[in-house]
């Protein structure tokens, strides 16, 4: 087989595979489909050429060239059509013209091959080539000039314009297009040279085998890959292997006579052994040269990739979650020189990814969101894809495929000002995402970058999981310690309260008795000053009595939560419970002062709990809400203010009852929120007599005695919402 046939065979194989890949991976992108047609045309050129250049008869060779010319005519047309599509240009008239021209040439090619390309002649002692002469084929020259100069240069110019206008991945892909078209252009003109000038061998046909592949790679492989890297790697590969395989060849051909004189009959052993040895060490040499070349070329990148690798190895040692997340953000931003980076971690309770750390070198275009909901398109995409997500890629895909979901993902990425998002998975769980901004240098993220980020993300995931575990453990420890402390306090409180109560009781009796005596002797005549003094004493004794009652309330309040256990747990009806709690407030709240809106279904499941304790809880909540609303009424004096408590309730799928009480009261001041559940803390005015134990006792009763949960949200001047979770009775 001669070289031209070999190059044609190569074209057929390469383009065949490429067309196949393009058809299955087009992803409904019209320009990819267009490229597959162009590649098919190249395939046809190769096939026709293969038939023509291996044909033994003249007739078959003419037929082969007719087939090959389908490719010759259609390649520039389809390429041009592709470029227009790729650059989003609409030129229907222009397309109509070139397709019509192509049809005309095709008709001539099939009906008058003799006058179109001049039939065939045998050249280089190897194959039949076209036999064009000035006299015969004017049309052929017209085709050559219009398609291979005007059309191709026009398309090429369009590509260049597009290159300067585009950014991101697309710009990178256009680089491949330009490189590919240059190679194709050279290949084609080499072939025409053989036609127009005698004695030029069409070696350039090999270039045609390469060009669709390069472009195909550029458009199909959406992954970002630096073209310099590809060229370097391919270059080194080709150079290393041609050297390794070339040396034995040269040895065999050029040094044959010398070898025969030295080794005699078994001269062939020398090239054989050399090639075996070289083939063995070849991969090592290749890797070595590649490493050296890349470390020279990509010195900067290597530096930060190494830093990141080292950093990720050290991460596991950090147990504090806050420190860990800010370290990740800090390292990534600083070493890769990014505009910013953020770390979001999953929060089981509210099913959201919360912003845990942020580090930025530049002012961000918009404030990054505090949370990313777990049920958004972005998180779905990350979970599905499981690899770093590149914003450029997503935007392009979204645009090309007109995919609504991807557009949503794209919008979310833009909101985060993200260039890349790295997911951190532990097993199947997405524990967090690391959001990276653009590189300050304006360079692109490369495949290698993403590989390093993936390592970083994996290490980070482990470290985060570790830190979570450690935090959990610390919390459990603290809870155990607290429980123990509470048990001790409980025993102490019991004895203490008895003692204190007795003192109060006695004090009350002493005061009461003296008061009683004073009252009885009121009518006994005494001097005025004594009378005045008696009034003072009476007042003082009344104060003692008041303090005794209040002290008693405090002791009682404290004792309530030291009592534990599930004794007296039964099915409690929410409606009845609220009725009972409201009954307790009767002495304080007059009819019409407060509206209660029960916004729950009457067929809710029952609560599992102690009625008396829960009654106490709801009484306290209603009482607090009422006080807050009265305070607002007094302070703000809004004309249309209404005191309303809204009670909502629902059963959760996990067998719990969720009850929400919202009021329209003063709300809680930011500075008071921290101390809300602390015993003896009260914001109520002394005239309203707050013991500061209400919420403290509520929390204990619900969380410790019932295994439930109390949470609240409050906005000063707007109102408070208390959310209670209690076990449902099954």
């Amino acid at each position: 087989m001669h070289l031209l046939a070999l190059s044609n065979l190569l074209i057929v194989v390469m383009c065949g595979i490429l067309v196949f890949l393009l058809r299955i991976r087009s992803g409904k992108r019209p320009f990819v489909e267009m490229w597959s047609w162009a590649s098919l045309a190249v395939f046809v050129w190769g096939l026709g050429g293969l038939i023509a250049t291996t044909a033994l008869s003249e007739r078959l060779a003419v037929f082969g060239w007719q087939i090959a010319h389908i490719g010759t005519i259609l390649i520039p047309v389809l390429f041009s059509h592709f470029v227009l599509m790729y650059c989003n240009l609409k030129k229907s008239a222009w397309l109509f013209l070139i397709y019509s021209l192509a049809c005309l040439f095709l008709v001539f090619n099939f009906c008058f091959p003799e006058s179109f390309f001049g039939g065939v002649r045998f050249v280089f002692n190897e194959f039949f080539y076209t036999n064009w002469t000035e006299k015969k084929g004017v049309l052929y020259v017209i085709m050559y000039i219009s398609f291979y100069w005007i059309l191709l240069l026009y398309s090429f110019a369009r590509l260049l314009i597009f290159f300067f206008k585009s950014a991101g991945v697309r710009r990178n892909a256009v680089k491949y297009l330009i490189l590919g078209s240059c190679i194709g252009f050279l290949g084609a003109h080499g072939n025409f040279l053989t036609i127009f000038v005698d004695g030029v061998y069409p070696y350039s046909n090999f270039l045609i085998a390469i060009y669709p592949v390069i472009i195909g790679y550029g458009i199909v492989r959406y992954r970002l890959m630096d073209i310099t890297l590809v060229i370097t790697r391919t270059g080194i590969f080709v150079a290393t292997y041609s050297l390794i395989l070339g040396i034995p060849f040269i040895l065999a051909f050029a040094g044959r006579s010398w070898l025969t004189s030295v080794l005699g009959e078994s001269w062939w052993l020398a090239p054989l052994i050399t090639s075996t040895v070289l083939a063995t060490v070849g991969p090592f040499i290749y890797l070595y040269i590649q490493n050296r070349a890349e470390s020279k070329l990509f010195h900067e990148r290597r530096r930060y990739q190494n830093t990141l690798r080292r950093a990720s190895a050290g991460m596991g040692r950090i147990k504090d979650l806050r420190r860990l997340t800010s370290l990740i953000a800090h390292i990534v931003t600083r070493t890769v020189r990014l505009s910013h980076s953020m770390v979001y971690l999953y929060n089981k309770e509210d099913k959201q990814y919360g912003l845990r750390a942020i580090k930025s070198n530049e002012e961000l275009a918009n404030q990054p969101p505090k949370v990313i909901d777990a049920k958004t398109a972005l998180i779905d995409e990350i979970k599905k894809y499981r690899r770093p997500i590149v914003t450029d890629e997503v935007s392009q895909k979204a645009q090309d495929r007109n995919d609504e979901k991807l557009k949503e993902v794209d919008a979310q990425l833009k909101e985060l000002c993200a260039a890349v998002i790295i997911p951190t998975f532990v097993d199947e769980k997405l524990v967090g995402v690391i959001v990276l901004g653009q590189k300050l240098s304006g360079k692109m993220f490369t495949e290698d970058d993403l590989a390093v980020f993936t390592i970083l993300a994996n290490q980070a995931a482990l470290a985060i999981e570790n830190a979570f575990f450690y935090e959990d453990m610390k919390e459990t420890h603290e809870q155990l310690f607290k429980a123990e402390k509470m048990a001790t306090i409980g025993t102490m409180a019991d004895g203490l309260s008895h003692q204190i109560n007795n003192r109060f009781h006695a004090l009350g009796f002493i005061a009461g008795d003296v008061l009683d005596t004073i009252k009885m002797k009121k009518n006994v005549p005494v001097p005025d000053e004594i009378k005045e003094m008696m009034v003072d004493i009476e007042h003082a004794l009344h104060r003692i009595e008041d303090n005794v009652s209040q002290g008693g309330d405090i002791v009682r309040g404290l004792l309530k939560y030291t009592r534990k256990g599930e004794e007296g747990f039964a099915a409690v009806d929410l409606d009845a419970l609220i009725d009972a709690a409201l009954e307790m407030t009767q002495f304080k709240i007059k009819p019409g002062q407060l509206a209660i809106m029960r916004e729950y279904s009457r067929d809710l499941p029952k609560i599992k709990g102690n009625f008396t304790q829960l009654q106490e809880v709801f009484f306290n909540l209603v009482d607090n809400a009422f006080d807050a609303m009265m305070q607002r009424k007094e302070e703000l004096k809004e004309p249309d203010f209404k005191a309303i408590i809204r009670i909502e309730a629902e059963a959760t799928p996990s067998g719990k009852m969720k009850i929400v009480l919202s009021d329209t009261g003063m709300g809680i001041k930011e500075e008071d929120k921290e101390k809300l559940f602390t015993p003896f803390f009260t914001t109520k005015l002394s005239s309203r007599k707050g013991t500061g134990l209400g919420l403290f006792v509520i929390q204990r009763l619900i969380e410790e005695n019932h295994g439930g949960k109390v949470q609240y949200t409050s906005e000063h001047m707007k109102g408070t919402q208390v959310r209670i979770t209690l076990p449902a009775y099954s």
Partner: protein
Amino acid sequence: MSKLLIVDDEIDIREFAKRFFKKRGIDVYTASGGDEAHEIIQDQEFDLILLDIRMDEKTGVELLREIRESGNNVKVIMVSGIEEEDMIKETEALGVQGFIHKPLVLDELEKIVLAELKA
């Protein structure tokens, strides 16, 4: 004259309650503990007993049980510090007129006691 027995281990409570009710023409006796009270009850009859539940040597509930076991149906008001549900149930079974919770101001105690004595 109505006869009232106050059982409490706190001397101040006994003393001042005694003074208070004496002024209302009630014959008041006191006992500082279960055993002392037991002896007094065996000697004479009372119209009402104010009985503290939690005392050092013998609890009010134990004393109440002894009283009832000896066939005495005297009226009893229990004085308790904390509302112990199980104790309330137990004393209710033994028959009492009511409960009062410490601390209590004398005026209110007076109302309860006088109402009980009149009944």
